[in-house]
């Protein structure tokens, strides 16, 4: 699974950081999403789906590699 983030759509709600803290971070200055890893291990995929669903700005896109 591949993750991309759109910083312009990010509204710094922090939902992604709460849900998948090893994949997402927030910039110190304005809280805009930072991607820590773009191809996380399968064990994290469920967290990632939740984070993408919870993101209020629609800033997280997941691409299923096998599909």
């Amino acid at each position, binding site marked *: 699974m591949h993750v991309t983030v759109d910083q312009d759509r990010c*509204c710094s709600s*922090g939902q992604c950081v709460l849900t998948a803290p090893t994949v997402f971070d*927030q910039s110190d200055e*304005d*809280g805009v999403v930072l991607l820590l890893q773009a191809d996380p291990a399968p064990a994290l995929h469920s967290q990632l789906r939740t984070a993408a669903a919870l993101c209020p*700005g629609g800033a997280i896109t997941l691409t299923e590699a096998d599909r």
Partner: protein
Amino acid sequence: MTSLHEPSELAALRFPEPRAEGCPFDPPPAYRQPAGRVTLWDGTPCWVLTDYRHVRAVLSDRRFSADVRHPGFPFLSPGRRELVGEQPSFLRLDDPEHQRLRRMMTGDFLVKRIEQLRPRIQRIVDEALDAMVAKGQPADLVTDFAFPVPSLVICELLGVPYDDHEYFQELSRRLLDSTAGPAAVSEALDGLTDYMAGLAASKQGEPDGIVARLAARDDLTPEEVAANAVLLLLAGHETTANMTSLSALALLQHPDQLARLRAEPELIPGAVEELLRYLTIVHAGLPRVALEDVEFDDGLRIGAGEGVFVMLGAANRDEELFASGDQLDVGRDARRHLAFGFGVHQCLGQPLARVELQVALATLLRRLPGLRLTVPFEEVRFRSSALIYGLHELPVAW
């Protein structure tokens, strides 16, 4: 039942609507109807949307504006319409202006920054409980605990003197009263704005606190500083305060859930999400106006210039998302709730609200194992006409 595609019956949207007898935690039945068109107090037709998918779709669609100055923007009352002439905070602006302003404040509410505040919040909670216990029984959980905790925290963050809390809390209460007319709304907002403008001016050159930092920026007018600082002050204490007292009451009324939470305190973070969902204190409906024609997946069409109220409380009981949604279940995964709204305007302070509620409720349950109401449940007075739901008082002993 109103058909989505042929909305025929124009009923009036009123606020507040009565809640069902004996069900003060459930949204008013009038707000749980299927999507439909209604008329407002001024005769304007407007949409009311109540299911999760519609509510989420509207709030995340940039074709719906939160800017009260757009023609067709729906107002709940004459008092609310008074806001048109006021300096808007970022809450009432669309992107890109909304984003520009909001991002000046998001850095203060980062998840990691709020986590660092947790010990300080714990101390504030402990001290408030110490003071309440020392004062003796019975106590009013609203004034002795639920209000002081978030007020002290937001005052520290903003750099607002807590000693002024009676003044700004009274103005907040008047501003958020849906029955307040145009003059009362103006007066309350002007009072808060003048207070904050004076504070900002006095803080020029000071290093600490959000107000001082905003005041030091050369890309903000003094009016913008005041309007946005007022928003943070209001949103920072009214919301968490009312959630805290309502949560305590809801748990006391659900002894099985309360017992489970006491036995399994690790459930607290999830329980806070469930209480946010179940109680949904932003209970009046969020207003938006369509900037262009919008058609939803299911065929619902909203025309350019038409107003919409989305009902968060009804959406948070949507059975498609939350099975047995009318039940409080502290073990449920409720994270998809819309209590903080959705879209770019979703609550800026939610990381702070979460930690405050987690610490306040965990500490309350741990330290006061005998917590109980001292009046019959039927006598507890709810803040029905306030735009943020809550309790007038909560008499308790322990």
